[in-house]
């Protein structure tokens, strides 16, 4: 039950077998050079013929007021249900709020957004409240008192995402109800104030869950063409069409760096080292977390800039221009890191949701279900899936970066200019496999 408590303890998967890690790393390396050597030489994903296939029927459905209303109402009902458990429930680990927060919300964002695109945006309770206030006041929910400063970009989300990973991975009392409630209250309050000031544009740039979800949703097949119609298209095209905004690299660095740190923290050597310290464990862990995030961001930025550029092109724009290609790597690694936690913790959440106030109730009829540990009993399948997740993420990332490089770099730098990026991406992937192997 306690295995959601990231702090100490918690059951986890067996380390990746060495030969799996080696095979994954070799595959990543080989495929990277195949892409570099053999892939197309003119940018593809920005061509109009890659816009995607319009799906007018599904488009009409998902854009209809009633459908949006129903999805929003379901999302809000779930929020109220869980909030009631958080406010009136007991401070026990059988309170469903912990599993909902750490597993369903945080990890569930990834599969939900891969399947449905920017999922959180459609169900976001803070957007719903903002919408309700705007309706009452007769104002436009998308606009606030001020215009959101474009130069801030995703930087606020990098901060709020950091606040989340700090709470999840460092803060020692993250499995107690009071602190969790406080974190969520501050989150909702900050989002409402931001919504009042800047409208829902603020949520698009500052809500940690929405930004994470929209980012991952770029790897779904759902997109919008220039006319705003719903289309089905290659996820790589979707990813390429993501607007480049300031802070995107920071957001990716927080997400990838923190997940890598989570693996690292579970390694036996680190556990024994931190337990041997007399004090300051949390400070040491916090510094390591920041170190991972900064290392990911810096390595990527330097790799993006180590190329020749055309005259008049600002080299410092390159890290942002390539940041989208970090998304598949972080999604692949997140899948590998969280797969069994999501499958088994998600079932636990479903079971606990039947009894929000720890009174022995069975409101949803799920209270007597038992967790299916099939995945844990099949470590070979689990390990294979993890390696596949990491390698597929890597390949998608390399292809995304390749297409961007030949679009942005002058012809004579196109091949050599990609080498540093390739080296760093292989480094991230091998590093990730190494963490899964040694933790």
């Amino acid at each position, binding site marked *: 039950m306690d295995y959601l408590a990231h702090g100490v303890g918690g059951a986890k998967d*067996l380390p*990746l077998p060495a030969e799996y890690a080696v095979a994954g790393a070799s595959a990543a390396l080989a495929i990277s050079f195949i892409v570099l050597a053999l892939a197309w030489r003119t940018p593809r994903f920005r061509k109009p013929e890659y816009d995607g296939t319009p799906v007018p029927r599904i488009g009409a459905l998902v854009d209809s007021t009633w459908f949006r209303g129903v999805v929003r109402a379901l999302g809000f009902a779930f929020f109220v249900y869980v909030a009631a458990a958080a406010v009136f429930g007991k401070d026990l680990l059988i309170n469903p709020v912990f599993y909902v927060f750490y597993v369903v919300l945080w990890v569930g964002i990834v599969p939900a957004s891969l399947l449905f695109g920017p999922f959180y945006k459609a169900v976001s309770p803070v957007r719903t409240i903002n919408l309700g206030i705007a309706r009452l006041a007769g104002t436009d929910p998308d606009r606030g008192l001020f215009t959101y400063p474009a130069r801030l970009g995703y930087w606020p989300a990098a901060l709020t995402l950091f606040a989340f990973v700090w709470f999840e991975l460092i803060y020692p009392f993250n499995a107690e109800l009071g602190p969790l409630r406080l974190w969520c209250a501050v989150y909702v309050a900050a989002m409402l104030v931001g919504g009042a000031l800047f409208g829902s544009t603020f949520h698009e740039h500052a809500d940690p869950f929405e930004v994470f979800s929209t980012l991952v949703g770029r790897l779904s097949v759902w997109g919008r063409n220039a006319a705003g119609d719903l289309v089905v298209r290659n996820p790589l095209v979707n990813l390429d069409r993501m607007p480049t905004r300031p802070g995107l690299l920071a957001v990716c660095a927080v997400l990838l760096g923190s997940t890598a740190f989570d693996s690292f923290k579970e390694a036996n050597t680190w556990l024994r080292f931190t337990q041997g310290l007399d004090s300051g464990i949390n400070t040491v862990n916090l510094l390591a977390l920041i170190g991972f995030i900064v290392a990911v961001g810096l390595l990527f930025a330097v790799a993006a800039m180590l190329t020749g550029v055309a005259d008049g092109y600002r080299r410092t724009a390159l890290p942002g221009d390539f940041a989208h290609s970090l998304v598949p790597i972080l999604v692949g690694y997140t899948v590998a890191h969280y797969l069994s936690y999501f499958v088994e913790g998600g079932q636990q959440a479903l079971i606990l949701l039947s009894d929000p106030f720890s009174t022995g109730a069975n409101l949803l009829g799920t209270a007597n279900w038992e967790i299916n540990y099939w995945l*844990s009993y099949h470590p070979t399948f689990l390990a294979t899936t993890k390696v596949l997740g990491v390698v597929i993420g890597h390949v998608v990332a390399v292809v995304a970066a390749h297409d961007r490089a030949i679009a942005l770099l002058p012809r004579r730098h196109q091949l050599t200019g990609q080498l540093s990026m390739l080296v760093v991406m292989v480094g991230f992937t091998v590093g990730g496999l190494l963490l899964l192997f040694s933790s």
Partner: protein
Amino acid sequence: MSRSHRSSVGLVLALVALLCLAACGSGGDSPGGTSEVVDTITVTISGDDIEPNGKRIAVERGAPFLLKIDSDVAGELHIHAKPQEMTVAFEAGQSEHTITFDAPGIFPAESHAHNKVALQFEVR
């Protein structure tokens, strides 16, 4: 195809060959851990100190494991195992407990009173 192109293709082929060697060379399904399988260990608790300080030991699935505890106070070790959590309650002094693991995984044995991990079981 240019010359540099051809040499990169050669490089790729070499890498693919390397990959096959790496993938096919070592068979089996041994997990990444290197520790030797043991069937008993002693946990020593004195004051704030828990030995062997979170050490990871390899344990065989389904086989009885003898956990010896030598503690200056009574207490509990929680083993975060799948599919069931285990609680090992002990008295002050020396005690012996037999436990059996069903599912594979890494399962820490933790003393909540100390907020420390005494051991990690690597169950194969």
